[in-house]
């Protein structure tokens, strides 16, 4: 929730803002996206669906699975062959919030800082990120969410999104924001095979929505706005320069058409007792901004052995990533550059300061890119997963899963001493110029899961019971330090630093320790009626000391109507009813919310006497620095859902309704300051999300020649509402948002992701400043926080996909359009770049509508404005439509493949994000552009 366009203040380096042109570390804190080949669990007979599928992921139940959204790896790969997050977004419209500010576009290094399933279930003030993202489960063990974006699509057998508390209850408190459950492929029993996968990706950025003025337009506009009054010579000189050199397209400079190529070789095979797989891969990915890249490489080895009673498997993977961020910085920095400046001299050497001494002096970002500054990450990850299973008899078995993970991420940031951030340094500060910062981030985790499974079949009844325990222990370590005093642009290593920087070195070490017990009882009658009862108890170090143990439970049922009532109907191919009720606990606060924290008041020692001599005996003083509540409770999400899915003739239909109440949410409540502080943390918030999800797929053509044509549409409607919120919380948050000019707020009765703004009374013709309607209906230039009004939910009222899939003989084709309707949008860019803009930086052509003495009937404020209020003028309802995915694939006939000594050969071309239109004409990303991708994939099996 920052205002990107306000961050271009010129600050001297210090702390985390050392590398001015690099993305702020606030998002993501540590870029640790990496591709990894995590291990698979046990394999073999127990994996047959409907028989003992719980072995792979025993936290699943029949009825819950029927109610949740499951997608096969093949479905996902058809939508996007390389990016799992993108594929999930296209396949399931209930995913939202991954890049709410649309900052990071197609940045290969960006990881979603947040993701929500079926609506926002926490307040948006972001006091803690403990519940920002769903839990990622891969073959039964949890993995870092950061890995999701680069997850190897070829490994995926299926992905299930657990959105409802009925399904997440079995994953407990760590799945309070939902869970993404990935099941990977197990090597099949056949002779040795080798598969080679290749994905070649072209990417091209689209930046047209900036709609900036060219040099002539900008100079004319500046002149009209009075920038050259008394200095006509400057205007004439600039016009002459433009005539000689033309207009500079700064936006084009940081961009490139990138080509990335991914290679993966896997060798696998086995028989009924031994299975094996080895994988090698290399994925050098280049982004569409120059210098932006991510190179991943690694290997994994799987081996499994099974006997009649024992199964054992182990997979070890080692993954590495080298990532570099673009030194070209955020796009808005380039958008603000005046087009009448030539970027470089005739030799091609970039100018550093443009228009020096004039009203429009600018520091050239191109100059910064000519320096040796950089920011890069080197990531190493090791993961080992061991699974054992002992089948005691035909009814009873025990199993265990043991996982060790070690991630290491080293980030290096170098700011050249030649950078303009040091421009104003005095001669005696020369030893402070240049900066090299090292940040190290480590994650070490151990997970252990042991469970017993009991199965009994008697006539029409099938009973299954599972009882398990799980241990999760993770240690996260971060530290950082910075050296300064490099005298040359090429002294780009920490050892060249003359000294440490003045600020303190950073370092944190945090822990998560969870001990859990869970149980499931499943009963089915005639494989027609399924009833599951599940429960889990978690004791976690992430919960409050006085309320350390959280419980989750669910009751779900599924009824196969087709089998029960319409068994002989040919018209109805399938018809299943599902219903469930459940409650899942979830994290929502960090350690300092529930435990006391103390710190040394280093700058304020308690001196022990008077006079200079005695003052040297300063006593250290220590103080309590936080307000905490040791009895804070976890977040509880209660959910009820009903659904129906079926196939009638050639039409597949699924509809699901859900109603979720997230209660005991973290809030602030006012209290008597006699209690030590004027507020306290409480569990007095609640948000209700209710909605409908549907999908329809109709096979409209299926003829004997092999042509198969299916039309499909999917959609999700979600309505969120804050049902409980203390006044103190709302007032505190809303006042803060108002003070900073943000368009956020919260109030009971409004949506949890509400957009708030002042109701604009238009631009005052006399002054060129904006007036607002106050609550009492009067107009004012000086509104207060109480005058902010709810504008609507930022979540679209309806969003989803539609399209067509077709197959003809060995060809397949798919076109997927994405749509979203009715979400409220705040056009921050236009406000910052037009309404609040001066004439010193370039502006969009819309700035022609700014107020001046000859344009008093204006839609944008004049130059003399200092207010940055969130205004209803920039609120609109956004409807979007995009051609998200277009694919054509061809599987070579076996005969042809065998001529090439292959067992199979598939090729496909997938085009991602080809076309996009929106009712709001504003740039989609201010930091990193969105790109259209063209991915040529090849899979050859030998």
């Amino acid at each position, binding site marked *: 929730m920052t205002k990107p366009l306000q961050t271009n203040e010129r600050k001297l380096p210090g702390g985390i803002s050392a590398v001015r042109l690099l993305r702020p570390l606030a998002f993501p804190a540590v870029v640790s996206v990496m591709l990894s080949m995590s291990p698979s669990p046990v394999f073999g007979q127990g994996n047959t669906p409907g028989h003992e599928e719980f072995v792979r992921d025993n936290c699943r139940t029949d009825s819950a699975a029927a109610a949740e959204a499951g997608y096969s790896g093949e479905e996902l790969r058809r939508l996007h062959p390389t990016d799992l997050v993108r594929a999930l977004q296209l396949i399931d419209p209930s995913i939202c919030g991954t890049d709410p500010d649309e900052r990071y576009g197609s940045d290969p290094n960006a990881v979603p800082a947040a993701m929500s399933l079926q609506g926002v279930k926490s307040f948006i003030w972001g006091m803690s990120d403990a519940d920002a993202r769903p839990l990622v489960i891969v073959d039964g063990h949890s993995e870092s969410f950061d890995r999701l974006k680069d997850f190897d699509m070829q490994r995926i057998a299926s992905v299930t999104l657990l959105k409802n508390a009925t399904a997440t209850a079995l994953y407990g408190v760590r799945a309070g924001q939902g869970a993404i459950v990935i099941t990977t492929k197990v090597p099949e029993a056949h002779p040795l095979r080798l598969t080679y996968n290749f994905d070649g990706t072209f990417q091209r950025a689209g930046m047209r929505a900036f709609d900036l003025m060219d040099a002539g337009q900008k100079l004319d506009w500046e002149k009209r706005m009075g920038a050259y009054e008394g200095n006509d010579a400057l205007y004439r000189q600039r016009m002459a320069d433009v005539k000689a050199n033309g207009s500079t397209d700064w936006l084009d400079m940081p961009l490139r058409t990138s080509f990335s190529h991914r290679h993966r070789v896997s060798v696998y095979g086995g028989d009924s007792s031994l299975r094996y797989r080895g994988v090698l891969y290399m994925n050098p990915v280049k982004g569409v901004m120059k210098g932006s890249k991510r190179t991943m490489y690694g290997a994994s080895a799987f081996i499994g052995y099974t006997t009649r009673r024992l199964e054992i498997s182990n997979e070890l993977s080692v993954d590495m990533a080298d990532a570099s961020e673009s030194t070209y910085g955020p796009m808005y920095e380039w958008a603000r550059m005046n087009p009448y400046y030539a970027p470089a001299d005739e030799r091609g050497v970039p100018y550093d300061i443009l228009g020096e001494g004039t009203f429009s002096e600018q520091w050239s970002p191109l100059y910064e890119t000519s320096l040796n500054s950089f920011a890069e990450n080197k990531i190493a990850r090791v993961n080992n997963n061991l699974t054992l299973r002992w089948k005691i008899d035909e009814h009873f078995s025990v199993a265990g899963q043991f996982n060790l993970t070690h991630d290491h991420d080293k980030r290096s940031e170098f700011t050249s001493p030649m950078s303009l951030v040091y421009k104003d340094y005095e001669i005696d500060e020369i030893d402070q110029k240049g900066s090299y910062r090292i940040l190290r981030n480590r994650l070490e985790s151990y997970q252990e899961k042991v469970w017993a499974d009991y199965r009994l079949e008697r006539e029409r009844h099938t009973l299954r019971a599972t009882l398990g325990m799980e241990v999760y222990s993770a240690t996260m370590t971060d530290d950082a330090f910075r050296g300064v005093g490099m005298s040359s642009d090429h002294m780009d290593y920490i050892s060249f630093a003359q000294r440490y920087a003045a600020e303190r070195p950073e370092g944190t070490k945090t822990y998560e320790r969870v001990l859990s017990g869970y149980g499931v009882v499943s009963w089915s009658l005639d494989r027609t009626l399924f009833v599951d009862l599940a429960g889990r108890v978690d004791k976690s170090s992430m919960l409050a000391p006085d309320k350390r143990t959280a419980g989750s439970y669910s009751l779900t049922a599924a009824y196969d109507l087709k089998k029960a009532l319409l068994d002989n109907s040919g018209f109805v191919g399938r018809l299943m009813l599902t219903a469930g009720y459940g409650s899942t606990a979830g994290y929502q606060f960090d350690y300092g919310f529930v435990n006391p924290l103390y710190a040394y008041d280093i700058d304020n020692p308690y001196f022990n006497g008077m*006079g200079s001599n005695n003052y040297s005996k300063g006593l250290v003083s220590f103080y309590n620095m936080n307000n905490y509540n040791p009895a804070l409770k976890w977040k509880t999400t209660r959910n009820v859902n009903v659904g129906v899915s079926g196939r009638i003739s050639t039409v597949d239909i699924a509809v699901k309704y859900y109603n979720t109440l997230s209660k005991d949410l973290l809030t602030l409540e006012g209290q008597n300051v006699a209690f030590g502080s004027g507020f306290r943390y409480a569990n007095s918030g609640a948000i209700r999300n209710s909605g409908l999800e549907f999908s329809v797929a109709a096979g409209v053509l299926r003829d004997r020649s092999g042509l198969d044509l299916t039309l499909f549409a999917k959609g999700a409607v979600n309505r969120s509402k804050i049902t409980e919120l203390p006044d103190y919380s709302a007032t505190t948050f809303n006042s803060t948002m108002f003070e900073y000019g943000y368009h956020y707020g919260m109030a009971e009765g409004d949506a949890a992701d509400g957009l708030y703004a002042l109701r604009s009374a238009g631009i005052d013709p006399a002054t060129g400043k904006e007036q607002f309607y106050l609550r009492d209906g009067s107009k004012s230039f000086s509104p207060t926080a109480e005058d902010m009004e709810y504008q609507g939910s930022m979540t679209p009222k309806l969003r989803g996909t539609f399209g067509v899939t077709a197959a003809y003989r060995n060809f397949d084709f798919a076109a997927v359009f994405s749509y979203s309707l009715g979400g409220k949008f705040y056009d921050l860019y236009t406000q910052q770049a037009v309404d609040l803009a001066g004439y010193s930086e370039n502006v969009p052509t819309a700035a022609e509508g700014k107020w001046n003495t000859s344009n008093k009937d204006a839609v944008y404020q004049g130059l003399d404005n200092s207010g940055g209020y969130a205004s209803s003028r920039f609120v609109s309802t956004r409807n979007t439509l995009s051609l998200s995915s277009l694919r054509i694939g061809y599987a070579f006939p076996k005969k042809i493949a065998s001529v090439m000594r292959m067992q199979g050969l598939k090729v496909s071309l997938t085009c991602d994000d080809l076309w996009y239109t929106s009712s709001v004409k504003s740039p989609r990303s201010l930091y990193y552009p969105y790109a259209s991708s063209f991915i040529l994939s090849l899979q050859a099996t030998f």
Partner: protein
Amino acid sequence: MKKIIYTAFLLLVTVSCDKWFEAEPQGGGQSGAKVFDNEGSFRDYMNGIYTGLRSAELYGSNLTLGGVEFLAQSFNPYAGAGAWAKMDFNDDMALTIAREAYTRLYAAIYQCNDILRLFAEKKDVDFIAGSREMMVAEARGLRAFLHFELLRLYSPACTVDSGASNILWMEGTQPKGVQMTTAQLTDKIISELEAAAAELAKYDPIVTGVGYDDLSLLGTAPIDRVWKLNYYGCLAAEARALMSRGTAEDFGKAYGLLTKIIGEGGYAFVRTVSGTDYEFSAEFIFALPSPETGFCALSEELFNPAPDGKGVTLSARLDIDDLHADDRRRNWFDSDNTMRTKFAPTSKIDKWKTAPAIPVIKIGEVYLMAAEAAAKSEQLPAGIGQFNDFMVQRNSESLKLPDTATQAQLMEALGKQYQYEFLGEGVRYHFCKRLNLTVTAYDGSQITDVGKKAFPIVK
């Protein structure tokens, strides 16, 4: 077999070591409660409480030189402070001072309760023998002292309205307090101070003469105890509370405590001024070291003429001729009708490094309280004697009272001494309020019923 396995699972699930879950994070310059595994952390936390007390919102300004002293009518207030000086507590300045002080005093009380909680929880931490007991008593005494500060600022004088119920007694870190009347709270404060003093009598180095200092634990030498609420500070605070309750028995008890300080404390008045220590730091019973530039800078800010300062001058209510020619307090009167000298840097060489301390309780107040307490507990001759001793110590024998002086004459003389003895320290207002006096304001107007005045509690 199944039963065994089920039982094992249940045991694993339900039985676990709590310590494993108490995974305290490290870093960010912060520590959790585990840092209190040694005596030094407790000592540092005690320092932190006092550090908060010397903030500008409390004794670093608003409760002393920069705020409450204006209520003593010592100064001609600067622009905007007139209403405050005349005790109009609905004025914006008063509301700000009242809100900030209320918040900070209770924050300090919270810290006292927090450290007492930690003392109770961390019983296995090793302390130098007696050190733990001393700090526990000190925290308990300080908590009572701070409640009394709240009481005398935010409630009418006990003798005027003992049934007022403005202040919560806070004991513990939970958001639960006990609403008490002024009488009940005064009783509670007295008993708490009494208990604290009883412990401090055994463990305070200022009494035992043996410090707890070693290389790592500074600040507990007998001489350093003046910067903490020590045994004698506790006794004096108890005497203040007793005298606010105001029965003859209370005065008698207070007189006993005060004579104990005078007799056993070994405090002496400054008879000759040497160096630049014009606030006579040797007379402190309990004082707070100023922040690096704090009190000195405040004095400069107040008494510097505009535009550099606020141009505060001494009010016409003060007359240097009220003091004997040899009275060292005359040094506080500067030729520009200010009192900059008193809180001037203690070194002329390094001005900002030698800020004076903030006196909270001085031996002078003990003498003056003793004189009043004796007189009001049917020991008038003894009271006159205490007063005369004080005047002798102040080199003002000529101002001694005759043995035949009445209680009223004694009180009048005491009132005058309160005006001068605590100039800039914010003490006289409480004296006037306790006695519900009518005060002549800096501009000559009369302020009646000072005992009914109370800072508003701004929520």
